[in-house]
């Protein structure tokens, strides 16, 4: 009973982290009307739905299975992977690949309906989560943008958590990984990485130079 309670508390922490991360993103979306923020918010909402579903499972213990091995959690996980891939393709303007994650997710889900083999799900998750996660980190680092950087970091950690859960069937490990991943994302959405990690040295130098110039002018005027 105590273990279930711990799991529920951890899921609530994830929900809280999702809400905290969505607040600045919604603000930015309102200000800029940039659809990228909408993509990130929908990714977070998918994580929120996953956690709510898990709480439902812990409370009532009923896992709805479709066919051989497809359940609601897997469907939401596939949605998370699809959204993450779509976000990356949108960011890189790879319009031709928009339908690829949708098609693959559909076939992975269909495969789980037919046979109780999680290997395709594992390969797909491994490939998309790590490749796209790393590419997002690289993209964020290159452009000194905290959102893709933190999203990439959180995707890699969240994906790692999901895969360990798939192997070890240990919810606690997954939850710890997800909380770490979500914490990174919260930091990213509140601008921590842009302020302290991804410092644009050229821009910083420019600002410094402007201040020095202004100080010199002020001194001269005095």
């Amino acid at each position, binding site marked *: 009973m105590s273990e279930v309670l711990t799991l529920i508390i951890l899921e609530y922490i994830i929900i809280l982290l999702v809400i905290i991360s969505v607040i600045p993103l919604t603000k930015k979306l309102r200000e800029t009307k940039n659809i990228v923020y909408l993509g990130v918010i929908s990714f977070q909402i998918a994580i929120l739905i996953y956690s709510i579903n898990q709480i439902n499972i812990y409370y009532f213990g009923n896992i709805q299975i479709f066919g051989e091995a497809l359940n609601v959690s897997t469907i939401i996980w596939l949605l998370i992977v699809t959204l993450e891939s779509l976000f990356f393709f949108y960011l890189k303007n790879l*319009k*031709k*690949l*928009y*339908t*690829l994650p949708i*098609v*693959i997710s*559909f*076939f992975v889900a*269909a*495969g789980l309906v*037919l*046979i109780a*083999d999680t*290997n*395709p799900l594992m390969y797909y998750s491994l490939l998309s989560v790590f490749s796209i996660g790393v590419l997002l980190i690289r993209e964020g680092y290159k452009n000194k943008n905290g959102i893709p950087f933190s999203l990439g970091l959180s995707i890699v950690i969240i994906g790692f958590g999901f895969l360990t859960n798939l192997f070890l069937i240990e919810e606690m490990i997954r939850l710890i990984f997800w909380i770490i991943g979500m914490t990174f994302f919260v930091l990213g959405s509140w601008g921590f990485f842009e302020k302290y990690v991804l410092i644009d040295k050229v821009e910083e130098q420019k600002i410094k130079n402007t201040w020095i110039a202004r100080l010199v002018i002020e001194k001269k005027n005095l």
Partner: protein
Amino acid sequence: MDFEQIRNGIEDIANTILLIVIPLMAIIIARRILLEKKNTGEWNKIRVLIFSVFFCYIGVVTSTFILETSPIGVSPYGKYFLSHPMTILSLYVISLGLLVSLSNCLVAYANKWEPFYYTALFIFGSMFIFYFFTGFETWVMPYIYIAAIIGISFMFITGFRLKDNGALGIGIFFTIAFSSLILSTILNQSILSDILYIIHGIFGLYFALGKFQPFKEEDIKNE
């Protein structure tokens, strides 16, 4: 000479004609692509896709020819790898699947629907991977039929909307081919399907030679 023999004779004639006509069409289209590349310095993607469609059609025609006229087709392995309709790994199904997928890509390219450029290929490729993991292949033939209907319908729509002779020609060509396939497999009307098969081969040659031009260039320019 009984009815069955006449039917077989027509079938052999149809298969032989197509075995000559389709590669000829592919060669004619390839020659045009190379000429255009030489003149403009760029590959015409639409023409390359048309060539790929006909190249895949060579696979369909060859497997049908070998299956129906040679002893290889009678052997169980030959039947399995050439054109057993329910086996995804057969030459017939691979060629036909690629053909309908590429024709859907062609439609997306012609209409500039960028997100759908490779969707049909993704679906067909996923079906292969799906087969290797699950051993399930029942969706392949329905996919081919559905994709063929979508492809042909949009070929006609694209042909009339953009006044494109190529799209309309391919639409007519594959409508005759598809009708022949439906007649032979679903309605079991072999003789009629073989006659249609011959007709579509003749039309194919007419089209590949560039004679099929219902929309004249001057009319399109005037509009």
